[in-house]
């Protein structure tokens, strides 16, 4: 019993840390540190999946969470960040200079988003009957922060990272709220995500080639 309590305390802490990592992401300027922060965030998620995996292995003998944990480690912690670093070495931009708003305001907006998801989610009955609720708020906030990150960054890699953070947010939402998604769905989401990153990597190269920059503000020829 005490073991279980320690477990849920750990999960609670991890969910806060994951939220915190998305704040750190929002506050960083260098593309290099985007990738690092994303790596750390994915590692935290892998830890959470691992803890849940051990718990379900001991109590029900299910191993699928552990497989998912392994997949996150391989793809989100190692492969995707490495690939993005390689892409980033080939383009000339290292530091983001112009945002739609300055960073302190963006971080404040993130706080606003957390408050927003708190109020929206507690308003829905059927969600708010147990302790899981606060973790759910953290998880959903990560999704909205990822969206805001995508809007605020103008470089192609920033937008890819933003999407990956949204996906991370979705993943922990599913993990914390339902405890068990069908395994095949988890796998499929992984395949989709991997293809997304590959495609976007290729496209970033091509955009850099044709437009001589990866500033997505330049993609403004098609209108009306």
């Amino acid at each position, binding site marked *: 019993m005490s073991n279980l309590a320690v477990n849920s305390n750990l999960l609670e802490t991890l969910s806060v840390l994951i939220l915190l990592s998305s704040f750190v992401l929002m506050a960083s300027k260098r593309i290099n540190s985007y990738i690092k922060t994303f790596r750390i965030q994915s590692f935290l998620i892998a830890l959470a999946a691992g803890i849940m995996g051990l718990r379900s292995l001991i109590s029900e003998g299910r191993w699928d969470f552990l497989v998912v944990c392994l997949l996150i480690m391989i793809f989100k912690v190692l492969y995707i960040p490495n690939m993005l670093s390689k892409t980033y070495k080939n383009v000339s931009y290292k530091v983001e200079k112009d945002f739609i708003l300055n960073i302190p305001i963006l971080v404040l907006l993130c706080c606003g988003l957390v408050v927003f998801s708190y109020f929206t989610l507690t308003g*829905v*009955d*059927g*969600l708010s009957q147990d302790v899981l609720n606060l973790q759910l708020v953290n998880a*959903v906030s990560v*999704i909205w922060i990822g*969206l805001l990150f*995508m809007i605020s960054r103008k470089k*192609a890699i920033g*937008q890819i990272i933003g*999407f990956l953070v*949204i*996906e991370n947010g*979705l993943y922990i*939402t*599913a993990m914390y*709220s*339902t405890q*068990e*998604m*069908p395994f*095949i*769905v988890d796998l*499929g*989401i992984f*395949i*989709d995500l991997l*293809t*997304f990153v590959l*495609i*976007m990597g290729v*496209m970033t190269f*091509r*955009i850099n080639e*044709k*437009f001589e920059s990866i500033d*997505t503000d330049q*993609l*403004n*020829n*098609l209108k*009306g």
Partner: protein
Amino acid sequence: MGILLLIVPLVAVLLLLTVKQSQFRHAISVGTSSLLLILALSLNREVLLHGSVQYASCGGFFYVDALSMIVLDIVLIIGFMAAIFSLGYLEEEIKHGKLKRERLGLYYSLMYTFIFTMVLALTVKNMGLMWIAIEATSLSSAFLVGFYNDKHALEAAWKYVILCSVGIAIALLGIILLHLSSAGVLNSSSFLDWTALYTKASSLKSSVLRLAFIFILIGFGTKAGLAPMHNWLPDAHSQAPSPISALLSGVLLNTALYGIIRAAVIVDRNQGSSSFTGRLLIGIGILSIATAAVFILTQKDYKRLLAYSSIEHMGIIVVAMGLYSPLAVFGGLMHMINHSLTKSMLFFSSGNILQKYDTKQISKLKGVLKIMPVTGTVFLLGLFAIAGTPPFSVFASEFSIVVAVFNGPYKWVGVIFVLLLAAVFAGIAVTLLKIFYGEPDDKNLQVGEVNLPGTVCLVILLVGITVSGLYLPGDLKELITKAQGIILGT
């Protein structure tokens, strides 16, 4: 048998990647799409006989009923037409140096991956798998949209993938909430299983389910091109090669709508009425029609104009689904079929015009009827058809939706609806009718058609939409009635 629908395109992709000669590539493409069409016919029979088809052997994930069969039919018919049209289209592009012959294999293999993902989305029972397949449709078509690899195509492809992926991510949140609403109701073997959700709909948690529907509507709505999430659509449709534009507009949008309809059915059953989904759907539908009407009136690029017209028709279908009366749902389903056939015909003919005139600007086109008698005639009649003129089939379905709106609870919606349809009609007439007459600027333009197999496709489609406007075959009617029964839960 039905499982072959998934295996055949995959085998075709593998073959297309190994074969090097372009004649063989063309042959494989046409062969595959004809085979798929035959398979669809036999599956149609089974669905009409048994109501639904599922196989216990493959983990129970394969499931086709009348609703998915209608969209599946559209996918495979338009897929077949696109395969035939591509024959002449690609050869013409290669002749003009716009495409290297080596890239033919890439084109076809991407196209069949795209068709495979759409078939997958329509044949799975699990909502989670359906989500995965719909996300895979945007990934597999990304390089098709950016196939020409110039600045504009790249921009369109980038916007397409970013906007659709983010939209679809929001839909995943909806799917997670849908899963959450069934906690304690379904056991782990039937998680997210559509039939289980459908039969147990009344015991799902309503408040979570309503939240789930909003996210699913926004998410799949992005993919279906509903305003205000439509920004990717005109770019992608105008920059993609014409056969792909036809597939995107005629098929992909319907696949995304299918996802919305599946979710709406569960929510409606849970609530016992359509007041919640209905208001959302009608609102977003009217907004889409209005947005499209404005952009059609001021459009300078004919492929973009057709794309905006797709947004309009998606809006019309969504309004019909929101009304939730038997007549409206029947009209909406029929409109799905009619719009796909008519719009793909228009995109095919715009492809012919583009290859002849080498411009997408409306102002630079003159004398289309004289230069290209067949394509010109089809394009002209097709424009009237898509604007909703009798005797074409779009008129028949639009008319039943209009009648249903005025029979429904929101009469004022009907007034706006009809006014907007009139505005779209006027927009199409004002902007496009001038291209058919006059003398072309370029005096060297030869009279004659490009792309012979494609032109045959155009004529077949034109005959199809004219005949089905006057007479609906019994089997098709039965299929639509069955799908209507599924949606209304009767």
